[in-house]
């Protein structure tokens, strides 16, 4: 087969297979980032709170999930979750093995890890808000909730964008590890294609190229978002109408 046929979209080509796997990678990562955003916001709030137990919980979370290999977390969630599910099944009278869906387990595992990094990003972003602006909000009589919604959240999001871009890239690469659960994302698809055709060089290089395309495209998205969010800070729109 020629290169063109190997990578073709129809017939015996692997093109469509790889593109679908790329979409799966993107979907796992996006889901993980969303899960991580919720976890990260909660953990950041815990770390910034006045309560000692909450701060401890936040500290333990970020220490554990940044300090333990990603692969271990994925195994833990997938196999641990599956055996838990099986036990529940047995209790309900079903005797077979119940596996956690690999997409959900993978997204959850990568999301939990991503949450640890996002928590640090949000915490840093909160500290970047000038204290005086928070005082001005208090001085005008804004209740705590309103201050959070109107002053803190918009500025945290703005300051968090560059950090979130980094976390997104980390999660995108972590998602390759989800291949161990059998989910056919880009990593697993490259493996399958290269194994079936014995064209290892070709398919791993194509897989790598697809990862690079994903990361460079998402880099652009984050850069644009950062520019837009910071338009109030840049001097390029002086006087803007």
């Amino acid at each position: 087969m020629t290169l063109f046929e190997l990578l073709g979209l129809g017939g015996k080509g692997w093109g469509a297979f790889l593109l679908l796997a790329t979409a799966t990678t993107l979907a796992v990562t996006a889901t993980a980032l969303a899960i991580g955003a919720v976890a990260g916001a909660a953990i950041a709030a815990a770390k910034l709170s006045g309560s000692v137990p909450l701060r401890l919980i936040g500290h333990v979370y970020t220490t554990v999930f940044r300090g333990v290999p990603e692969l271990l977390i994925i195994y833990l969630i997938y196999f641990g979750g599956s055996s838990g599910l099986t036990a529940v099944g047995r209790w309900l009278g079903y005797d077979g093995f119940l596996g956690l869906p690999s997409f959900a387990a993978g997204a959850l595992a990568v999301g939990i890890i991503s949450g640890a990094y996002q928590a640090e990003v949000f915490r840093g972003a909160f500290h970047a808000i000038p204290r005086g602006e928070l005082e001005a909000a208090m001085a005008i009589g804004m209740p705590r909730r309103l201050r959070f919604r109107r002053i803190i959240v918009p500025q945290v999001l703005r300051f968090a964008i560059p950090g979130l871009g980094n976390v997104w890239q980390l999660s995108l690469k972590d998602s390759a590890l989800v291949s161990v659960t059998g989910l056919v994302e880009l990593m697993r698809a490259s493996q399958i294609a290269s194994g079936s055709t014995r064209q290892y060089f070709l398919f791993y290089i194509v897989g790598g190229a697809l990862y690079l395309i994903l990361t460079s495209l998402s880099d652009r998205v984050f850069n644009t978002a950062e520019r837009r969010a910071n338009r109030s800070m840049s001097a390029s729109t002086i006087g803007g109408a």
Partner: protein
Amino acid sequence: MPGETRLSVRNLRKSFGTHEVLKGISMDAQDGDVISVLGASGSGKSTFLRCINLLETPSGGEVWVDGEQIRMLHGRSGSRPASRAQVDHIRSELGMVFQGFNLWSHMTILQNVIEGPVHVLKRPKAECIAEAEELLAKVGIADKRHAYPAHLSGGQQQRAAIARSLAMKPKVMLFDEPTSALDPELVGEVLRVMRALAEEGMTMLVVTHEMSFARNVSNRVVFMRDGIIDSSGAPEDMFGAGASPAFRQFIGHFGNPQ
């Protein structure tokens, strides 16, 4: 109405750890009073101002705003306000202008000015915008209403911050060294706005180093030293023969104000 007490402070105390910054300050502001609070740095004058709207929690004493006392709980572990809601309400009646302007950097000037009336006072937005534009015209930056704070000079930012406070229709305006962070050539435009406010009858408490403002605009001068009020009185007396030795020495550092 003139003669009504807008702000009353009784025996206000504040300690940071074992360091007592305010050692019992009492002061009244009647409607239309413009009171300049002078003192060397470290005399406690900014802390005094920040205790009035509870940006710092007083350790003791009473604050009354327009006849309403801020309820405090004084326990062994320190002091705290009895009701957050009351504090928020009182704060909405006190305008505060900071040394560092503190405009919200993610909002345009107009958004800064309408933020309080729309979201704190929950008034109709269209009405607030109309008032905000009038206020911005009054402080001379109507043309900057759609600009972000970072694009304005310090003097323009401080005038916008004054407009933001005024939009709340405060009963008393607190100024915490409003011109100290400004380049000398920008001080005048801010002082002119403050003078206009004073002439309209706004009740103002101004912590400042501007001797000319204290002497020519305010109707009372309070001199703080080491956490107490050393002396106070009409500017003619304070800057004239009636000055206390400590105040005389203090203003000596500034030369003779015009």
